[in-house]
């Protein structure tokens, strides 16, 4: 596996919670799985440059995002990532069109107009250009958020609980869409979830978080067959025995 993203950092919060993690990813779908409070979302904020780690090294391809020894800390504006917040964070005072264009580097130019048109087609949003987020369904909002993130031509995609706010009925199709998107872009896509079924269905690589540490990392198969602790073994066992895919922390 070519390493595209390497992440190593320590961070202690005022609340007493502290993190110390290290993992790497290729141009694949990486799922961060673990109970809430394990540090998954904090990892995203650190990857995005919204929170500065106490020490560590974060690198995407040949761009160093953060290096505490070299005193490098790229601001979020320069990191070229697409970040989908759990509730999509669409600007409520902007239409679909304005939201998507917001991500463009030169929203007034001709290129922006054709990029916008392409996004509308790609994410099945034609006809919804003038709608405000309040008048969109959960699935539509997610596609607007994805389209907006894609306008930046990101080199890394971070998706925080992308399926938590959509109906069960559309989850399967969104999973397929996300997989296709990652295959087309060929960039690392990191997905946070606390739902095992989702993790197993999406992950090329599964990273299990607990209490601010990585408990185990590997392909879903490796983890199910060689669980490294009792908790993982328990749900891995259940998954194998019962085909139970709905386990979640």
């Amino acid at each position: 596996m070519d390493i595209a993203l390497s992440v190593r950092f320590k961070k202690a919060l005022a609340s007493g919670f502290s993190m110390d993690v290290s993992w790497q990813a290729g141009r694949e779908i990486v799922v961060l799985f673990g109970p809430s409070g394990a540090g998954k979302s904090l990892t995203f904020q650190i990857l995005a440059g919204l929170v500065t780690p106490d020490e560590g090294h974060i690198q995407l391809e040949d761009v160093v995002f953060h290096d505490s020894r070299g005193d490098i800390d790229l601001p979020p504006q320069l990191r070229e990532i697409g970040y989908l917040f759990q509730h999509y964070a669409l600007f409520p005072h902007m239409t679909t069109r304005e939201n998507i264009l917001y991500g463009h580097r030169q929203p007034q130019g001709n290129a922006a107009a054709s990029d916008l048109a392409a996004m509308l087609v790609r994410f099945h949003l034609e006809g919804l250009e003038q709608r405000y987020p309040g008048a969109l369904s959960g699935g539509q909002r997610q596609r607007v958020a994805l389209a907006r993130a894609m306008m930046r031509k990101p080199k890394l995609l971070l998706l925080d609980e992308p399926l938590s706010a959509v109906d069960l009925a559309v989850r399967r199709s969104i999973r397929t869409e996300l997989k296709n998107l990652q295959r087309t872009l060929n960039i690392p896509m990191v997905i946070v979830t606390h739902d095992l079924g989702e993790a197993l269905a999406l992950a090329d690589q599964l990273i299990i978080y607990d209490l601010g540490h990585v408990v185990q990392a590997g392909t879903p198969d490796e983890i199910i067959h060689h669980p490294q602790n009792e908790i993982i073994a328990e749900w891995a066992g259940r998954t194998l025995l019962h085909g139970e895919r709905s386990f979640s922390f």
Partner: protein
Amino acid sequence: MEAILTAARLSLLVSVTATALIALVGLALAYVLARRDFRGKHLLDALISVPLVLPPTVVGYYLVVLFGREGWIGAPLYRLTGWSFVFTWQGAALAAFVVALPLMVRVSRAALEAVDKDLINTSYVLGKSEWETVRKVVLPLAKGGIMAGVLLAFARALGEFGATLMIAGNIPGRTGTLPLSIYSAFQSGDDALAQTLAIILTIISGTVIYLAGKWTSSRWI
């Protein structure tokens, strides 16, 4: 009739001037208090807000100490320019500014703090600077609260009496705003004039407060 118009015109001049300054300074202070952490933040907050609870005469007293002809700032200013805030409409505007500023800061700060942090972070990740984010995301979403703050400050400035009396005095045509003219009319036994002025002030202030309430219920909640 002449007296009513003069007082109303002066009140408007004083309140509009004070409110314009409050809108700029108050919004900047509100933003800093809402989005930044720094030493002395609570002290600054308290300093801005204390005129809310002090008797206006005490605020006026401090204004004289600071801006009077012998004041810490007033004395050098008088020496340099030969001009002073004392007994001028600018003095009345200064009093209105200090007394009404905390309303603007408190109301607009609450509105700025209510803007979802995820939206601000999304804007940064999408490559926008803090200034662009403020212009395109924060201010439009906090618009209702900011407008309410401006209107409340205007209403408070319009009704300012005690601090104005201390620094600007009560000179008809120069510093005799509506509230001060009501007092003068009442003192000199002109009950009809006092009544008319009181009704005018009530109508203006009532309308402004009504609008402030309406503005606060922003459309994007």
